[in-house]
């Protein structure tokens, strides 16, 4: 694995965060590289989502910096990062419940002329779904639509918080394939999740979060050779 900051398109570095005197993040850092998928693993409550949210400015961190390309943000905001090519998929409910997917896709095209709206229909597999609102879709369709929306945006950096959560294995595999395809377009991807097998299959870099800080384990094979990660997270002997 290269030194973390070299070639990284997105760097969230040195993040500290306390909630009511309890330190949740202690100098946590994570990087995303062009054309590669970085997976952030960690047990529930270890601070994976908090790290992403601090890095995106959705939560105010006590300390830390976010670097996107040549831009450095000490007080990041998702809207500013989005205008620089980042797209964030939260763990649930990306879409507005009031508008059809097609109309929301129209907003994306108006804001970002470089967007590729045809990719959403391709990911959805059924163009008729574009005429529906998000609550009229099944969980799997909604997640596919969200991934398709991200692909249509053609982002330089894509962050997703638990993109495979609640999906059947086949649907999870489809979403994982789309993540891989997005990386194939040159996008830097950073995802969190607990679906170890599916995520390890697409991971180029593995980061393990424990005790409020991050450990860069290297490639998938290097992570699987890491005794503490295997025992304390994967529970493999």
């Amino acid at each position, binding site marked *: 694995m290269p030194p973390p900051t070299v070639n990284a398109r997105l760097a969230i570095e040195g993040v500290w965060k306390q909630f009511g005197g309890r330190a949740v993040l202690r100098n946590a850092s994570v990087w995303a590289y062009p054309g590669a998928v970085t997976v952030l693993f960690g047990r529930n409550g270890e601070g994976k989502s908090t790290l992403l949210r601090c890095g995106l400015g959705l939560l105010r961190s006590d300390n830390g910096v976010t670097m996107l390309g040549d831009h450095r943000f000490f007080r990041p905001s998702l*809207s500013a990062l989005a205008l620089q090519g980042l797209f964030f998929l939260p763990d649930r409910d990306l879409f507005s419940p009031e508008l059809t997917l097609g109309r929301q896709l129209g907003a994306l095209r108006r804001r970002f002329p470089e967007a590729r709206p045809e990719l959403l229909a391709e990911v959805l597999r059924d163009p008729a779904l574009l005429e529906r609102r998000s609550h009229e879709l099944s969980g799997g369709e909604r997640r596919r639509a969200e991934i398709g929306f991200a692909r249509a945006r053609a982002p330089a950096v894509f962050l997703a918080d638990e993109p495979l959560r609640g999906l059947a294995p086949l649907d999870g595999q489809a979403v994982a394939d789309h993540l891989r395809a997005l990386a194939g377009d040159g996008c830097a991807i950073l995802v969190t999740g607990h679906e170890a097998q599916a995520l390890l299959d697409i991971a180029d870099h593995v980061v393990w979060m424990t005790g409020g800080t991050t450990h860069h384990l290297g490639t998938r094979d290097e992570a699987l050779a890491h005794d503490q990660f295997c025992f304390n997270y994967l529970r493999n002997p």
Partner: protein
Amino acid sequence: MRLPWLVPPQPFLGLLLRRATVLWIFSRMFIAFYAVVVLGGGLSVLPETACLGLTTSVALTVLLAGLTVLDVHRRHEVILLANLGGSRRGVFLLVALPLLGLEALTCLLPP
């Protein structure tokens, strides 16, 4: 110029303005109802409730714009809007300016 608090694109722009206008209409109806029925002023005080004065109008606008931003949070739309380059500050300003215009318009209406 691309500003970090850029307002969201259509159709979100229209959606937010519609929500804020509905809120404004309801709050204005409430104020009129309060003056006429609860305070017992009768229909004769109705024209006086049209123009609330600068401070009250600004306070009402800030309150309604804040409620619209909260409503965006409640509907889990804040991340989608941010992904489209729109911020909470942008939504607030986007909503507050037309509401101030509506407040000014009611003062210009003949009694």
